[in-house]
């Protein structure tokens, strides 16, 4: 009765797509409330900080300050959406809604479930950074067409923060502890990863610490793409993102697996 197993259940890509499709369906169900804010947020940011601050700060790192912000903003948007999706979102699906238990009754494994979800968070990172460049692009604030590389970096950023957030989700004891993650880690990163001001302006002894922030590397890749300034050192940023994603993702999946398969 032993059959060749491979032909008997859907291949990996189909399983991952199934999980991705579930998230896609849920997200697109409320298209207005889910799809509009990614476009409004950069508008508000540009109006509030960009227009106001630009009166006082003219240029930053050799470009108009508003352009400097506009080339970092898509990446923080990707970071926050992926972080929310795989912290609060994952936790609620795991502990409150029991969505995973339902999905695990189908021919889907824990790895499919979590990797599919990380890919979905990457997709959201792509979409959110795309929304930002559409808005800032409409104001002519970013170079075209090279800024079209941004959503790709947004995808990588989303995947990286999804992996990290899953690790955090596997560690927290209750949903309130995510506050530490957001105010203690993500918010500082927003300010010290070269989005608001160049890292060169940091005191020398702090600069190595900024290099430990995953966001730093994503922002650097994004700006390099925007201005088509490709340098071999960018490979280090890519490598950092790849390693960080792999390690955080692997640890997170291993730990969550223990909660899902007992």
């Amino acid at each position: 009765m032993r059959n060749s197993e491979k032909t008997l259940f859907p291949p990996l890509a189909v399983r991952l797509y199934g999980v991705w499709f579930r998230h896609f369906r849920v997200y697109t169900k409320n298209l207005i409330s889910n799809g509009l804010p990614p476009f409004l947020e950069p508008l508000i940011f540009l109006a509030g900080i960009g227009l106001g601050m630009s009166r006082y700060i003219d240029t930053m790192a050799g470009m108009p300050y508003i352009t400097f912000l506009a080339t970092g903003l898509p990446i923080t948007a990707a970071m926050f959406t992926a972080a929310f999706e795989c912290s609060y979102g994952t936790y609620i699906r795991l502990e409150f809604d029991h969505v995973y238990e339902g999905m695990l009754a189908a021919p889907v494994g824990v790895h499919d479930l979590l990797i599919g979800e990380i890919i979905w968070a990457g997709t959201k990172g792509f979409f959110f950074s795309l929304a930002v460049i559409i808005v800032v692009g409409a104001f002519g604030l970013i170079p075209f067409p090279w800024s079209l590389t941004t959503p790709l970096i947004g995808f990588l950023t989303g995947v990286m923060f999804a992996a990290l957030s899953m690790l955090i989700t596997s560690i927290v004891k209750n949903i309130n502890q995510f506050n530490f993650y957001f105010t203690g880690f993500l918010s500082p990163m927003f300010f010290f990863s070269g989005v608001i001001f160049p890292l060169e302006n940091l005191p020398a002894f702090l600069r190595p610490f900024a290099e430990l922030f995953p966001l730093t590397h994503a922002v650097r890749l994004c700006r390099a793409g925007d201005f088509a300034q490709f340098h071999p050192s960018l490979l280090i940023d890519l490598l950092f993102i790849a390693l960080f994603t792999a390690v955080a993702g692997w640890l997170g999946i291993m730990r969550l697996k223990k909660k899902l398969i007992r």
Partner: protein
Amino acid sequence: MDPVISVSSVYKHFGPTCAVKGLSFSVPASLCFGLLGPNGAGKTTMMKMVYGVSQRSAHPPGAISVFGFDPQHQSLAIKFISGVVPQENNLDEELNVEENLRVYARFYNLPSKTAAARIKELLEFMELTGKRRSGIRELSGGMKRRLTIARALLNNPRLLILDEPTTGLDPQVRHLIWEKLRNLKRQGMTILLTTHYMEEAFHICESIVIMNKGEKIVEGHPHELVGAAIEPFVLEVTKPEAFSAVSSSLPPSARVERSNDIARIYSSDRTALQELSNRLNAGEYYFRQSNLEDLFLKVTGSTLNAQQ
């Protein structure tokens, strides 16, 4: 023909507690097999090990085979040809009835046309067609259960695994679900279910294992078990003082089980029990045929509900 499921001396430990203790059974094709027992007997744990969402303990070593696959390593193959109805409905509350099924159909790689036809058919079968656009929160408990069963049937499974299919549902819904399960069985599907309702096992199972505290107590056909292992009639005396009044004149063949305030007098002598009941007031006794519940009481010394 090989059994669809065979389980041999399986153990499951959660830390110091042992939820399943050396359980063995096998489920032949095309019949309904029930794991019966009170809450905490280890039924759900056993079910989860069958489809690989729980892993059996490595020591002492046991074995599980489902269609020749080991759930420890090949759970995807098992879940592809089996439908699983978990104890909790765990439907996706962010999606409506039809979308729940459509999202699930992706996991089986059903082409969208096939999926649409299958979903239509299943909604009809489960009498949910009118609710296909409804949100999950708008559904009654019985509808949620039927939808969860429909979800498990999407891929035309050869084996249907149900963990407490009708717990918490009203009798009408329960009968409806039993009718559907009998219908599926007639189509050749193998069914494995857990229940703590003796009545449920009696209605739809051809074969049962009664479990208590992780162990198998008895195994067999429910009707035959009741016929062979226990006296066919029982007089339940619901008041202790009423029992003391008749306790001196019990028929010689009688066996008495007492739990809480209820005394159950078992005997194969129907007339003797009836005569005894004549000496009691209405409302103090209940005369009936023995059932699986009585069998459970006999072998474990406790009622099914006592441990809930």
